[in-house]
């Protein structure tokens, strides 16, 4: 084989890529190809994203006036519950790991597929089954417990379809565990020769850390919901205070999962951004090993901070102190990451294509959201702002501002690899800027409303908060447009987009060495790795504009 062939400049014999390798619906439904499963997931979560989006659109419309004009209280409660349940478990948790992660993890480590391909497909079917249950709960009349399913409301007082919704989440939990097991085994067992742990791209590290959290936290969620189901459906008293049960225990079990779940959502986002910033700044990531440790520490300590959701729940004040302390500690690695992304820009050759704009947007929103987290870790301040719109704003900054921006960043960045087509650049830049602006317009006012004392989950509210809600709702309209735009122009690019080469960004990483779109087995040759990630320039140098190989040669000489 010649060098030209190795780098793929000469045409290989015609061979269908993964998208055209079998075109029937059946070939998609029984596929074990991780790339096709990623596409299946992408379609699924897009549908759920818009379902959750429609629900919250109605909620935001309703909140335009203080006394309600569109919905009854029950409908309102069911809509925000559905929004929360769908967005958390059927969009955010699977979003980056199951689409981009599924697609890229094997490519990035130079493997032909994930370790257990059939399990991977099974996990998708579980997600679908769970989604059907949850949507059934909506169609049958909805569930009104909020996404948190707090007892004893969910077990004894709610007259809605708690059973269907809780079972839906219970089942999707197992999909999550299956995916986590699969990714952990893949990362350990299928790395290409030479791909040592400290040559892994940060995205792989992020997916790995996320998988650990999925595997160890999700079973506790499953149990907390199983207990709700058992108490509600089988009549077994567990949390019922009349039988001596402890409703707060449910909150412990629930938040043991649901706090780390935030890291399930945000760690992969950090991974995506850590790929994109070096590529468009043409710089090695600043402090690679610290970035790795920071992610592992976040995943680890993430298990010990759940009690900060319960400062006013009647939890013991001593436990409050422990959880407050640990919550402050976990802010350290998050701060490190922000500093490192910023420092990676230093002496770069920065260009501002859409992925970079989305990624920088992520850094901005994540910083804002993360800093507002310091207020919530301080017990006295948290007591005042918890269960108000301050908290709503805080977690939307992290989970929506952060994770969804990063998801779009990654989607644009790897779109040429996934589809073989380029997206339209100016539309995408416009959407990225619009999304950032719309997001801040929506959620910044909520910090103020929350501090001034507007509780969350309020169908009607004291009229003095109207100004903030009107601002928020108008921002949401812009945000909705910014979310719809990519749907349109990305679909357009599938048919009319420019053909993408192997490596349109001049990025490092194994996924860029194979074809776009990749062949069914990812690589036509066995990839070998002999250098670290983000090799955009020689060690100790600043960014240059030459392709990585050239710069590297110069550094060595």
């Amino acid at each position, binding site marked *: 084989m010649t060098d030209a062939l190795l780098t793929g400049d000469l045409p290989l014999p015609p061979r269908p890529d993964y998208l055209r390798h079998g075109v029937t619906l059946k070939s998609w439904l029984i596929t074990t190809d991780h790339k096709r499963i990623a596409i299946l997931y992408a379609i699924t979560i897009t549908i759920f994203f818009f379902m959750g989006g429609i629900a919250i659109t109605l909620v935001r419309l309703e909140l335009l006036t203080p006394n309600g004009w569109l919905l009854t209280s029950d409908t309102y409660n069911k809509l925000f519950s559905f929004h929360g349940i769908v967005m958390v478990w059927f969009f955010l948790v699977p979003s980056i790991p199951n689409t981009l992660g599924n697609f890229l993890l094997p490519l990035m480590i130079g493997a032909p597929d994930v370790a257990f391909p059939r399990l991977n497909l099974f996990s998708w079917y579980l997600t679908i089954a769970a989604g059907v249950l949850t949507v059934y709960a909506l169609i049958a009349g909805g569930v009104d417990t909020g996404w948190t399913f707090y007892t004893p409301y969910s077990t004894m007082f709610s007259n809605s379809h708690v059973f269907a919704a809780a079972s839906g989440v219970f089942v999707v939990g197992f999909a999550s565990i299956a995916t986590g097991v699969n990714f952990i085994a893949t990362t*350990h067992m299928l790395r290409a020769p030479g791909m040592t742990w400290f040559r892994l791209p940060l995205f792989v590290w992020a997916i790995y850390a996320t998988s*650990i959290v999925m595997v*160890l*936290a999700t079973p*506790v969620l499953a149990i907390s919901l199983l207990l709700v189901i058992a108490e509600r459906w089988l009549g077994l008293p567990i949390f019922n205070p009349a039988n001596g049960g*402890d409703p*707060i*225990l449910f909150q*412990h079990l629930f938040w*043991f999962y649901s706090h780390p779940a935030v890291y399930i959502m945000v760690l992969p986002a950090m991974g995506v951004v850590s790929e994109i910033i070096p590529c468009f700044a043409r710089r090695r990531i600043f402090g690679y090993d610290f970035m790795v440790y920071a992610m592992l520490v976040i995943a680890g300590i993430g*298990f*010990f901070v*759940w*009690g900060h959701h*319960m400062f006013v729940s*009647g*939890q*013991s*004040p*001593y*436990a409050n102190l*422990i*959880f407050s302390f640990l919550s402050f500690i976990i802010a350290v690695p998050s701060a490190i990451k922000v500093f490192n992304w910023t420092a990676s820009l230093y002496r770069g050759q920065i260009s501002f294509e859409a992925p970079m704009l989305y990624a920088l947007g992520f850094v901005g929103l994540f910083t804002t959201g993360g800093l507002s987290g310091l207020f919530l870790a301080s017990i006295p301040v948290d007591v005042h702002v918890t269960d108000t719109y301050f908290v709503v704003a805080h977690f939307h900054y992290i989970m929506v501002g952060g994770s969804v921006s990063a998801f779009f960043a990654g989607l644009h960045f790897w779109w040429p690899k996934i589809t073989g087509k380029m997206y339209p650049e100016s539309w995408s830049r416009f959407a990225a800027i619009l999304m950032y602006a719309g997001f801040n317009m929506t959620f910044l006012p909520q910090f103020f409303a929350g501090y001034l004392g507007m509780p969350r989950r309020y169908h009607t509210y004291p009229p003095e908060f109207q100004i903030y809600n009107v601002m928020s709702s108008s921002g949401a309209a812009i945000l909705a447009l910014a979310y719809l735009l990519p749907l349109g122009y990305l679909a357009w690019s599938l048919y009319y987009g420019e053909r993408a080469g192997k490596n349109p960004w001049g990025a490092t990483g194994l996924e860029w060495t194979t074809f776009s779109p990749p062949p069914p087995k990812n690589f036509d040759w066995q990839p070998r790795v002999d250098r670290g990630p983000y090799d955009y320039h020689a060690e100790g140098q600043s960014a240059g504009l030459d392709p990585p190989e050239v710069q590297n040669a110069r550094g060595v000489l």
Partner: protein
Amino acid sequence: MSGENAAPRVSARQLWRRNGLIWAALLSLLFLSLGLAYVPMGRMTMVAGIVIAFVKSSLVILLFMELVKSKPLVRLAAFAGVVCLAALFALTLADVLTRITTTQ
């Protein structure tokens, strides 16, 4: 890996003897914990039951499941689960055991 014609590394007898011993230990521990449950020792009765359960499960995990012979990676996986569970217990009980029902 041994082939079809190669002599097996262990005989069936050895297999039964080694595992049978573990089994005998497990059963004696079972009867020990049954007996101890009837000895009034206050809170220690419960503690004894749990400690014996730990010993029994260690036998099963280490020997039947061959964790002692497993790769460090596998041991790490098992360890991670146990550590995480310990955190769940420790921090939840940190609340439950120190709750102040009333302040004066």
